[in-house]
């Protein structure tokens, strides 16, 4: 199916009698590449850049300088261009990927403007606003790509390769992790993603793609000046991406095609209407962007996509990954919590809590609202840093480790409100769990070298779905699931990750009686297989019939520990739950 993109290569033949349209076609291909770089950044990773044109400029000026001033081959220029784009991305990204989402785009505006000014003012190096002329054409097996017709084959061919590579990326563990990261960094970290590193890599990839487009741009026009690498240009690319629909590859391609045509038309029309020359098309971009953001925030493609047949991927049949199945003597201590303490602005939320979790048991952590259960849970899972105390997993100290490191050691968690990714399928959601059990990096994913591992990851996810009874829904979007099914899917994601210690945060909230019973029996059978469960909940019906042991907290302290029946009779527990009898 996706190989149909190669049909784009027929366009130069169809347009060969019209040199003007061949030029437009080349511009479309170059714009599409830049917009695809925004697909990686915004569509997948949930960040945005207003400096894509600056990355292009890096690629363009690098090759221009090397070929004109040093007389080297354009292919060396390509290498240098990609390198410079990469370095710029590294600098910008390293400074901002850890910050809240808006610092990156804001600082890209500033860098974009600064680089544009430099390109215009470093006259000795860049030729200032007159630019650098007479770049050599690219030669390909002795053929000089010096006409729009010939050049279009190169740009379109590279464009199609890029599209295919990005499809590969989207379908890989990296693509899933990026989408997860965009939706919910906390959840992504809980199954092994290091958010800052993954974001930075996506930013680098995006910069390199734009750099490639810049290189091709320079050798197409065989002339570079600062204008096409301005902030306005960067914004134009962003408008294309958002208008078409930045969440999908066909969406951004549609945006690029639409705006390349529109720009051409506006550039002719507006000066006629206004009776003056100038960059009036920016008005159109701005207003179209505003309208799309208000009326169709997901862009135009979803409106088209509805009428297209959707294709079924089928269920995976490969051999699942070999995960270590939970084993070890029942009753051995797997998780040790000692003197855990945490305060928020003077309020002591957890005041020295200790307990052990033993293999194969279901331990419930209960207590009235505000007792510190959830804080304790988050301290164990690494989502919060304790002020004092220790947590040991399988004898190894994990206190203060980030969630993605703790997860790798065999501890998985769920969330109070299911943290799922509704636009992904049920199978993909479960497959997110396999992130830390698979290895393929960006490059392997792009080149499609990780297919085998990918199939095994999906098979693992499918096996986990079968285990919780969701296999019939594997190919549905997760948004179709009921709350109960969403809870099961979170468990499946844990099972697919090979975690042996399962931390469940209020897993029964929102479930109906029948669903609760099924959920409880699933947990019991998992415990029999050797999984260890720590459950935080306040649903007494569920806990009392399910847990082997109960730890009760109140005011940040442990007030009781023991079998459910003992705990229910404990006067301290009754007082904590029902309140004091007397009123002063």
């Amino acid at each position, binding site marked *: 199916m996706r190989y149909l993109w190669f049909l784009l290569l027929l366009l130069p033949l169809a347009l060969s009698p019209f040199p003007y349209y061949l030029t437009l076609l080349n511009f479309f291909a170059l714009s599409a590449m830049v917009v695809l770089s925004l697909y990686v950044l915004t569509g997948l990773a949930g960040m945005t850049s207003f400096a894509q044109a600056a990355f292009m400029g890096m690629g363009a000026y690098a090759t221009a300088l090397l070929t004109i001033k040093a007389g080297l081959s354009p292919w060396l220029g390509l290498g240098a261009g990609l390198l410079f784009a990469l370095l710029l991305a590294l600098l910008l990204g390293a400074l901002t990927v850890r910050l809240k989402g808006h610092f990156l785009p804001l600082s890209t505006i500033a860098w974009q403007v600064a680089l544009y000014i430099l390109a215009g003012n470093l006259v000795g190096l860049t030729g200032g606003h007159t630019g650098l002329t007479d770049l050599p054409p690219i030669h390909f097996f002795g053929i000089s790509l010096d006409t729009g017709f010939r050049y279009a084959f190169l740009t379109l061919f590279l464009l199609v390769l890029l599209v295919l590579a990005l499809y590969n990326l989207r379908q890989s563990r990296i693509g899933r992790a990026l989408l997860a990261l965009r939706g919910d960094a906390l959840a992504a970290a809980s199954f092994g993603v290091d958010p800052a590193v993954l974001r930075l890599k996506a930013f680098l990839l995006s910069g390199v793609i734009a750099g490639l487009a810049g290189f091709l741009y320079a050798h197409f026009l065989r002339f570079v000046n600062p204008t096409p690498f301005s902030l306005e240009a960067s914004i134009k690319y962003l408008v294309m991406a958002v208008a078409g629909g930045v969440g999908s590859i066909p969406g951004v391609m549609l945006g690029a095609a639409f705006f390349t045509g529109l720009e051409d038309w506006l550039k002719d029309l507006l000066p006629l209407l206004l009776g003056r020359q100038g960059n009036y098309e920016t008005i159109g971009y701005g207003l179209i962007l505003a309208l799309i953001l208000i009326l169709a925030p997901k862009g135009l493609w979803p409106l088209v996509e509805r009428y297209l047949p959707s294709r079924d991927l089928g269920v995976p049949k490969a051999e699942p990954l070999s995960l270590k199945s939970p084993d070890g003597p029942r009753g051995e201590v797997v998780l040790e919590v000692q003197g855990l303490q945490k305060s928020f602005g003077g309020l002591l939320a957890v005041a020295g809590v200790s307990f052990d979790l033993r293999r194969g048991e279901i331990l419930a952590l209960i207590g009235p609202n505000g007792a510190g259960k959830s804080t304790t849970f988050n301290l164990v899972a690494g989502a919060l840093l304790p002020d004092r105390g220790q947590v040991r997993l399988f004898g190894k100290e994990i206190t203060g480790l980030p969630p993605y490191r703790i997860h790798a050691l065999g501890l998985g968690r769920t969330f109070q409100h299911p943290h799922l990714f509704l636009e992904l399928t049920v199978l993909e959601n479960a497959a997110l769990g396999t992130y830390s059990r698979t290895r393929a990096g960006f490059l392997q994913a792009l080149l499609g070298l990780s297919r085998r591992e990918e199939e095994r990851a999906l098979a693992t996810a499918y096996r986990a779905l079968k285990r919780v009874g969701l296999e019939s829904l594997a190919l549905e979007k997760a948004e179709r699931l009921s709350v109960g099914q969403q809870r099961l899917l979170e468990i499946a994601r844990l099972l697919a990750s090979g975690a042996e210690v399962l931390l469940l945060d209020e897993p029964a909230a929102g479930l109906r009686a029948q669903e609760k*019973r099924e959920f409880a029996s699933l947990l019991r059978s998992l415990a029999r297989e050797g999984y260890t469960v720590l459950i935080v909940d306040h649903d007494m019906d569920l806990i009392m019939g399910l847990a082997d042991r109960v730890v009760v907290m109140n005011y940040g302290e442990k007030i009781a520990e023991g079998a459910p029946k003992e705990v229910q009779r404990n006067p301290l527990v009754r007082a904590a739950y029902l309140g004091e*009898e007397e009123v002063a």
Partner: protein
Amino acid sequence: MSLLSVQGLTVRYGPLEAVRGVTFSLKEGEALTLIGPNGAGKTSVLRGLLGLAQAEGKVFLDGAEVRGRSPEALLSWGLVLVPEGRALFPGLSVEDNLLLGGFTRFRRRENLRPDLERVYTLFPRLLERRRQPAGTLSGGEQQMLAIGRALMARPRLLLLDEPSLGLAPLMVQEIYRILGELKREGTTLLLVEQNAKMALSLADRGLVLEAGEVALMGPAEALRQDPKVVEAYLGLSREVEEG
């Protein structure tokens, strides 16, 4: 005639029905408490009432049906919520927080001074700390501030969401002493609580919510003795059959 009457209130969050068909009413000067274990849908009832969550069902104030609920419109009728988590303005001073409680009345050019005096009489601790940023108060003082701020709007019906949450027992008693005082002065109270014993000692009537539905309703005195309330909280009655 009842001051507030709720008929068949259902509250949804996406696919999740947090409250199903809850019906109750409240007379002027009465105190009703909504109790039940965590997750039973108590807070959602309040959110549905105020139009802060997607809700179906009818709500009558003074016998007139309320349509197009918005917190602003209900506020000017006198329906004031002290939310869970208090929603104070931590960077503003205690007194500014209180004055903002009367913001809609201030816009109608009413004098807020007498109300401020009244709040300070009820909560002398707030008077001592009136210049301090609200964020530096202790949990109990913050709860006092949240209640005081709501009083500045001159509520005809005061909704309180878990006023005892996270407070030490002595502070809970202090808060309830003040709520008792408000009740004696004639303020109508709708009190959402997990702390059932405390709430039932204050309220005239109680309503036990379980899994989004009304499980029990009756005079507070009767509910205090009812073993079913204890069961609802501690899960004593039902056995989950072994899988």
